[in-house]
Structure formats: structure tokens, C-alpha cells
């Protein structure tokens, strides 16, 4: 067992996996000598050399596209998008190409491409360094979207991602990089995709949350315990495809559900989860399905006050839970 931060969990797993599998290489902007702008690949250029740690030109479309080409050849490229916000120029390559090769060739050509992207807000990044992009991509069949949020989950899912034969969008909440610490065994355990995790067992209300919001939710749940409100926290971990069963089982038990995310409300991931509940847990619901999410504005402002207003947090989550409990 080691205690480590989210960012260390990523770095160490990348290193170990590259030692294991010579087909893995990393490309992206500034991933080489600079070690990436968040230092995720720090020291890896020194260890693996410029053959395997490749500074790319500043061009996301082709970062993803060359990753696709290399994956088609049989390698296991990992591409880093410097900020999740900057994946937008690669939308066509990611959605219409990477996610469709298997389907459009009846399984002949596959794209085992791992795309890492730091996402999320609360770090003073303003409109273009704070976005949560998961809902846009969770709408895309054929593309795994995962967002593990603890060192344990990150290590297990990153290992798994490097064995999956389909493209994976691996989202890392940048504010949790150094904020969140946790334990992880020193073994090569794996966590499969499509399996949610109950991060806290409770009986009154179910909250579904991931990323930074998972941690804010856990804090809110802790606080509510003092008022004898028992909150169950489900971390979907894989956002596409969702583990519908675990979510349904929990909500059927508690009868009340809250979904939390930073992404704006309309058509955020919460929409799909709420729709699922409205369809499959209808008879079990004791209260309206609630969502706490970023407001429907184009993105998160820079000014502290406005950023704080935008971001959901433990306080806002606790307020919503109290309201839901009282329903």
C-alpha cells in the first residue's frame, strides 16, 4: 500500500505500463522535456527517450488523428490533450473517426487509443481552461469516457484502459491532481469499465457524482450525517457506457436521487441519469430527481466570485440534499 496523490497515480501507472508494453508511446504538446504543463509526464522523457515521449506540434486534430493511425497499426498510443477544452478541434477525428472504425468495418479495424485530458474548474482557468466536456462525448457510442477520481480508481482504470481495444477518453479532474490523496495497493490490480462504485453507503438519498464533485459530495454527506441524514454516494467512474444497474439499485433502495456535476445543467450527464431513473425507477421514486450542476452559461468565468457562483460545492450539495430529504 502507498499513499499518493491523483497526479502521482497517473504518472506512476504510465511509467509502469510503458515498461511493460513496448507498443505504448506518448505524444502531445510539451510532454517531453517539459514533462507536460501539469507535469504528468515528468521524468518520462529522460527514462523513455524521444522515441516514446514525443512532443507533438500544436495541433489537436492531428494529435488525435495520428494517434488513430498508430493505433490502427497495432501500437497503443497515449495522447495528452493539454486542457480538455482544447480537444474541440479534434472533435471530428474523435467522434466520427476513432469512435466509428470498429463499427464501420464490422470489427476489422480497431482503434485502441487512449486520450488523456485534464478537465474541470475551480482553478481560475476562466472560460477555456475549466470545462467539463464529458457529456458531449458520453453521447458517442463506441467511445469510452471514464473519469476516475481517486488514486485507487485512477490506477486500476488506467491499467485497464491500456488493455481495452477501443478508444478511451480518460478525464482527469485537474483540481484533484494534487488535492486528492489516497491509498492504492502496490499490485497490478485493474478496475473494469462500466462498473460504478459505491463510495459511501447510505439509506435516505442517493447522490451520483464523479470528479471533484465526488469529493464535494462526500464532504456534504459527512456533514448531513450530523443531522441523521444518510446519504449513499455512487461514483459512476465510467461515464460512457454508464453502469445503469448500480445506479438503479441504489436509487430503488433510497427512493431519492440527486446528480451533481460541474458541466452545465442542460444535457449534462445528469440528464441521462435522471431520464434513466424516470423510466426505470419510476415506481421507486419518492421525490423528484434533482440535479445540482453548473448553470447554463457558455463556460466558467474567471473572476473568483463568478467562478465560485458557477461551481457546485459541498455547501450547495448539502442544501439540495436537505431539500430532497424534506420532500
Amino acid at each position, binding site marked *: 500500500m502507498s499513499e499518493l496523490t491523483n497526479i502521482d497515480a497517473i504518472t506512476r501507472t504510465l511509467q509502469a505500463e510503458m515498461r511493460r508494453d513496448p507498443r505504448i*508511446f506518448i505524444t502531445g504538446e510539451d510532454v517531453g522535456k517539459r514533462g507536460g504543463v501539469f507535469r504528468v509526464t515528468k521524468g518520462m522523457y529522460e527514462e523513455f527517450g524521444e*522515441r516514446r515521449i514525443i512532443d*507533438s*506540434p500544436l*495541433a489537436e*486534430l*492531428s494529435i488525435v*488523428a*495520428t*494517434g*488513430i*493511425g*498508430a*493505433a*490502427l*497499426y*497495432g*501500437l497503443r*498510443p497515449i495522447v495528452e490533450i493539454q486542457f480538455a477544452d482544447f480537444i474541440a*478541434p479534434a472533435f*471530428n*477525428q474523435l467522434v*466520427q*473517426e476513432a469512435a*466509428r*472504425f*470498429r*463499427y*464501420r*468495418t*464490422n*470489427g*476489422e*479495424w*480497431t482503434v485502441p487509443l487512449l486520450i488523456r485530458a485534464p478537465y474541470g474548474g475551480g482553478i481560475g482557468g476562466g472560460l477555456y481552461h475549466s470545462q467539463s466536456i464529458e457529456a458531449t462525448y458520453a453521447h458517442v*457510442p*463506441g467511445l469510452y469516457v471514464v473519469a476516475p477520481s481517486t488514486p485507487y480508481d485512477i490506477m486500476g482504470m488506467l491499467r*485497464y484502459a491500456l*488493455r*481495452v*481495444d*477501443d478508444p478511451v477518453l480518460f478525464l482527469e479532474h485537474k483540481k484533484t491532481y494534487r488535492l486528492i490523496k489516497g491509498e492504492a495497493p502496490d499490485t497490478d490490480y*485493474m478496475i*473494469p*469499465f*462500466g462498473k460504478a462504485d459505491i463510495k459511501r453507503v447510505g439509506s435516505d438519498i442517493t447522490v451520483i457524482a464523479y470528479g471533484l464533485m465526488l469529493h464535494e459530495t462526500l464532504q456534504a454527506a459527512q456533514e448531513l450525517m450530523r443531522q441523521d441524514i444518510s446519504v449513499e454516494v455512487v461514483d459512476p467512474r465510467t461515464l460512457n*457506457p454508464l453502469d445503469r444497474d448500480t445506479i438503479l439499485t441504489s436509487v430503488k433502495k433510497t427512493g431519492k436521487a440527486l446528480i451533481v456535476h460541474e458541466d452545465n445543467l442542460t444535457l449534462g450527464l445528469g440528464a441521462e441519469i435522471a431520464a434513466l431513473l424516470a423510466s426505470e425507477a419510476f415506481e421507486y421514486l419518492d421525490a423528484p430527481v434533482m440535479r445540482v450542476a453548473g448553470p447554463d452559461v457558455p463556460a466558467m468565468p474567471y473572476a473568483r466570485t463568478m467562478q465560485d457562483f458557477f461551481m457546485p460545492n459541498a455547501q450547495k450539495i448539502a442544501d439540495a440534499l436537505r431539500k430532497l430529504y424534506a420532500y
Partner: protein
Amino acid sequence: MTLALATDIPTTPQLLAPLHKQLGLHDDLALEMFWHMLLARRLDERMWILHRQHEVAFHISGIGHEATQVAAAYALKRGHDFIFPYYRDLCLTLALGLTPRAMMLAMYGKAGEPMSGARQMPAHYSARALNIVSISSPVATQIPQASGMALAIKYQNADQVVMTCFGEGSTAEGDFHEGLNWAGIFKLPVIFLCQNNQYAISSPVEREMPVKNVADRASAYGMPGVIFDGNDFLEAYRALTQAVARARRGEGPTLLEAKMYRLSPHSSDDDDRTYRSRQEVEYWKQRDPLLLARKYCMENGLLDDARLEEFEQRARQIVDDANEFARNAPYPPPEEALNGVWGALPKI
């Protein structure tokens, strides 16, 4: 064929030998090239007829592109090198080994279509066993993908090369720029083959780009840009073998531009009379690559009327067979639509 692949083409022209020999192609190979052009043409023509007969819903044609395409197929090491084709590459992919039956199954969207399981529209060529990589419909996306595959080849220190094809109009997309930029920076073993047929649907070249030639753009990517007569199968072969050899020697990418003409409308949905004159089309019909190749083969004793008739008959049989086969094939089971989204997950 291996001859032309393994070594470079002789640089001092043997003036007395016919061009194909100068290029290291013996008679049988040159004739085989002609045969593929002919077969592709007859298949393509039948597809137009089937569309007119309402047998099939859509056709996008490669008529006029055969010389360049057959040259590309013969310049590559089949099953070893990789190809990212585009939707006009009927002749190219046929010469590389895709069967007429496969092509016809795609036309009808029938079960057993091996490229996409009848999921894609016709002309979306793919065959893993032949190293033909699947294309999508959004143009130019394959260009940076080809660079990525070439990066992988270099990473593995393999001696393969990658070729990708596209139209001149598609060079306006950002994908073109980014793909060539990677190839130039990393000196990748990739050949960018632009089939410049002078139109992007209705847009003439002047509306697609502010330079006369696509090849003029090569210098922006630190690579040679080579223009050749895309209607001449041997000139095309010369340019292609040189580019392939350069890539295989590790000297980096080449941007090739084949000048030609789209003899057909853009697709079966198009009516090209709204945007180009019949005189223009007639002018280019005189430069029909199939006519030119036939003339060459005749003049150089590779072909006579009897042999040609035999070829035509064989082509007709093959096309008939492919059509019959596809027409009689069943449609895919509807629920097939649900399969093939995700691969099997790894066991843990």
C-alpha cells in the same frame, strides 16, 4: 512487380526500350495494369447502369482516375504497405485485391459485404487483410491518420510505407495541413497522392485554392511536390515508384499531384451540366486514361484486338457474376445494426 519495388528505377533512359520496360515493368505486368483499368471501368460503368435502372440507390465513380490508381497499386508492396484510399479508388482497391463481388455487395447494401458489413455507403473501401484502411465520408480525415500510421512504422523501424489518396478540393481542410505538417516534421514514410480531377463537386480549382497546383503546397511542408500526367499510367507509375522508394529509404514524405479529369458527374446525385460545359468534358474524353493505355499497349505489342476482346469478355463475365451474386444476396438481418459497437472487454 517486386523488381520495381525493391530497387530504384533506372535513371538513364534506355531510349530504345518502350517506356514500361524503362520503368522496370515487364510486359505481363504492364498488361496486367491495363487489365485492371479495364475491369474497373467496366465495373464502374455497370454501376452507373444499375443506378439508372433503380437497382441501386447511389454510385460515386472513379471513371477517369484509373491510370493513376492502377499505378499506385503496382508501386506499392501489396499486403505489406498500407493504403488509406478515398471514395474514387475503385480501380486502386480492385487492383490491390478487393473483389468485384465485394464492390457489388456494397452497391446493394447486402449481407456479407466485407468492408463494413453493409453499414457504409458504397465506395467506402476497406480490407484489413489487404492493409486497406477504412475511410469515412468526411473528406481529408484520412490524411493525418496516414501520417500517424507512418509514425508507427517509423517507431517500429519497419520498412513499410503508407499511401493516402484524396481529391484536390479536400486539401482546403485543416486535416490536410496538419497531416502534412506531421509528416514533414518527423520525415515519415508516407505518400500523399492527390488525384486532381479539377472539381470538388461543382467548384473548379480556382475556388478551392489560390495556387495553380496542389503540389505547390509541398514546400510549405518541407517535402517534394511532384506533378505528373495522371491520365498516363506509366508516367503515374514513374512518379509513384519514386515517391515510394524515397519513403522506403527513410527520406520522408512526398506530395504527388496527378492531373486528370473527373469524366463522370460527381456522383449519381449530381448533374454536372449546371456547372461545366459539354465541350470541356468532350475535350477531356480525348485524354481518357483507358484509351491512352489501350493505345500504348497496342502500339507496343502488348495487346491486339483478339486479346482485347478476350479481356472485354472476361470483364463482362466478372461484372455479371458480381452483379448476380450481389443481387441475389440477402439483406443483413435488421438487428445486425446493434452489433460491433464495442470490442470484447479484457479479462481481469
